[in-house]
């Protein structure tokens, strides 16, 4: 499956948008946290998991999705949220903990929920898989169209929830696609030290579903595999599993010393940064020209800067608002 020129530009634009967002978050996150790194300080306190390098996974999959389709993402959610069309202003405001954020600052960066585009994420490893299966079941039972996509890291594929969810989705032939972003590390533990098979897509065989493998963080490889899996799900032929070899260009979280990485690994990954590579591919293919690229990048930067200004200028909720929204009024939901 080949992307159209428009789809290619869409994927590239969203990669650029996501990357610039992360670069700005990274800079703002460090404000007030130095000279001695203190996680509690600064305009964005708490843990921060950046997704620099993993953008191909998000755009290659989400290029096939509409706002109606369901995505459950992980503790490293920004690139996926951007590609799924989560409201950028409200998302950034949430990362800052502001009243105008997706949940008014109650959730923060690991708990972004945007019902308008059926996006959610979670800080517990493997937690999004069950809900994706359930959403797919709901669509099937209601006769509503749409697929559910559960994203996870390769580390999550060793959780019980992974095996249970794949089996359940396969037994019930549900329209769900499981996407593994294999960045080779679960915090400091290397994939080969934690996973008994070299590739998680091989595990699809255990559940009698198709497994796809995408090498080298290849945007269009992701697009092709996801296109096939999602089409299959839409046609009622059940779930698929995709594992994408991707790269985490940053630490596991901000503040991670990354001493566990073999020497030179990071430099190697940076040299294979998927964004300049895709840019070059699009220029070579004539889908993008230099002027078009400059305009596209400028537009992405402007969009991110506007979202950050929006977040910075927003107020915090009054502290007592912490007590609200633990429950909804009965009948209020949906």
């Amino acid at each position: 499956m080949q992307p159209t020129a428009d789809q290619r530009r869409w994927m590239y634009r969203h990669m650029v948008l996501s990357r610039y967002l992360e670069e700005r978050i990274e800079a703002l996150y460090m404000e007030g946290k130095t000279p001695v790194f203190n996680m509690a300080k600064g305009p964005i306190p708490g843990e921060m998991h950046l997704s620099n390098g993993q953008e191909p996974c998000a755009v290659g999959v989400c290029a096939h999705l509409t706002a109606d389709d369901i995505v459950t993402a992980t503790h490293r959610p920004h690139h996926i949220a951007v590609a799924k069309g989560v409201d950028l202003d409200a998302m950034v405001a949430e990362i800052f903990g502001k009243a105008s954020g997706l949940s008014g600052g109650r959730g923060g960066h690991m708990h972004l929920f945007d019902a308008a585009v059926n996006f959610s994420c979670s800080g517990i490893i493997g937690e999004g898989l069950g809900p994706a299966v359930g959403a797919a079941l709901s669509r099937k039972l209601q006769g509503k169209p749409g697929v559910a996509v559960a994203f996870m890291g390769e580390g999550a594929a060793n959780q019980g929830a992974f095996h249970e969810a794949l089996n359940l989705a396969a037994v019930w032939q549900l329209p769900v696609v499981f996407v593994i972003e294999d960045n080779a590390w679960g915090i400091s533990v290397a994939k080969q030290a934690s996973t008994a098979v070299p590739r998680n897509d091989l595990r699809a065989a255990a559940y009698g579903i198709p497994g796809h493998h995408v090498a080298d963080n290849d945007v269009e490889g992701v697009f092709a595999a996801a296109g096939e899996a999602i089409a299959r799900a839409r046609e009622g032929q059940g779930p698929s599993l995709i594992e994408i070899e991707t790269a985490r260009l940053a630490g596991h979280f901000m503040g991670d010393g990354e001493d566990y990485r073999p020497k030179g690994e990071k430099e190697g990954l940076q040299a294979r940064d998927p964004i300049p590579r895709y840019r070059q591919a699009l220029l070579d293919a004539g889908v993008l020209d230099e002027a078009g690229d400059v305009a596209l990048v400028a537009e992405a930067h402007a969009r991110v800067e506007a979202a950050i200004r929006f977040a910075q200028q927003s107020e915090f909720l009054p502290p007592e608002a912490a007590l609200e929204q633990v429950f909804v009024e009965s009948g209020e939901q949906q």
Partner: protein
Amino acid sequence: MTTVTKSATRKLTIARAMAEATAQEMRADPRVFVMGEDVGPLGGVFGNTRGLFDEFGAERVRDTPISETAFIGAAVGAASDGMRPIVELMFVDFFGVCMDAIYNLMAKNTYFSGGKVKVPMVLMTSTGGGYSDAGQHSQCLYGTFAHLPGMKVVVPSNAFDAKGLMTAAIRDDNPVVFMYHKALQGMGWLGTEKGATVPVPEESYSVEIGRAAVVREGHDVTLVSLGVGVHHCLRAAKALEEEGFSAEVVDLRSLVPLDRDSVRASVAKTGRLIVVDEDYHSYGVSGEIIASAAEHADCRLKAAPKRVTYPDIPIPFAPTMEQWALPNADKVVAAFHQMMRES
């Protein structure tokens, strides 16, 4: 129990103290081994297995896959078969994925076997918030773990106790849940409570599990707490002293077994009780302590007891909301003033 003789001058963080106790027990007993996520070369994300991998190697300090059900269940199996595993659940909040292994296996196998199967393992896990890690990484859940029978539960507030309790936990023939508060670990990036870093003897010693400590004597009110709450209480006691009141501070140190006698003795002396707990307000440690005092004839209270706790809400991300909701020394002082107005 070894009594500590040498006077200690060297200060350690709780993280170092935990690692030191573990190393000493590993040297003494080849059955002791450690497993969990990132406990190997990284030394644990909260620092409490630092240095162990270098000394004992990958065989005895095992990084695990992210598979808590499997590796905590495996610890139960190994413990039942003669080993003494120390296993880490990185954040207590993750208990949901593996609670069955904890409370149906680890905690009950001894009972089911009529006492014939021993499960000598330590489950260590981090608790607490205060740095905006939001609702899935900031809970204490002390009440949840202490509520379920069959496992001992300890919560140190300082490095001396942490080392002694860790030694005792490893030597105990029962499962012990060792809950350490992140703000006490002495990790710079977590914004550390300095009072937790105290002199720790180099030699091995144990602190008895099930004995509270009176960490400050007083006669007007008893402040009971655990973990980081003890430090809020000590600060509050200092503030109250300046106002002319003397507060006694009881550090529970252990939730199971619970040293009700020490709490009662203190309350019998002061006649007033405030419990400080970063865990959720309802059904928790605070209710248990108040009930323990109230149901005892010697504890004639001069005023209704009070609790300073975390409200029954998920932990919000925004620092404005989270800091507002967390217990602190000012809230303890305010609770005391309120108590005095009411009585």
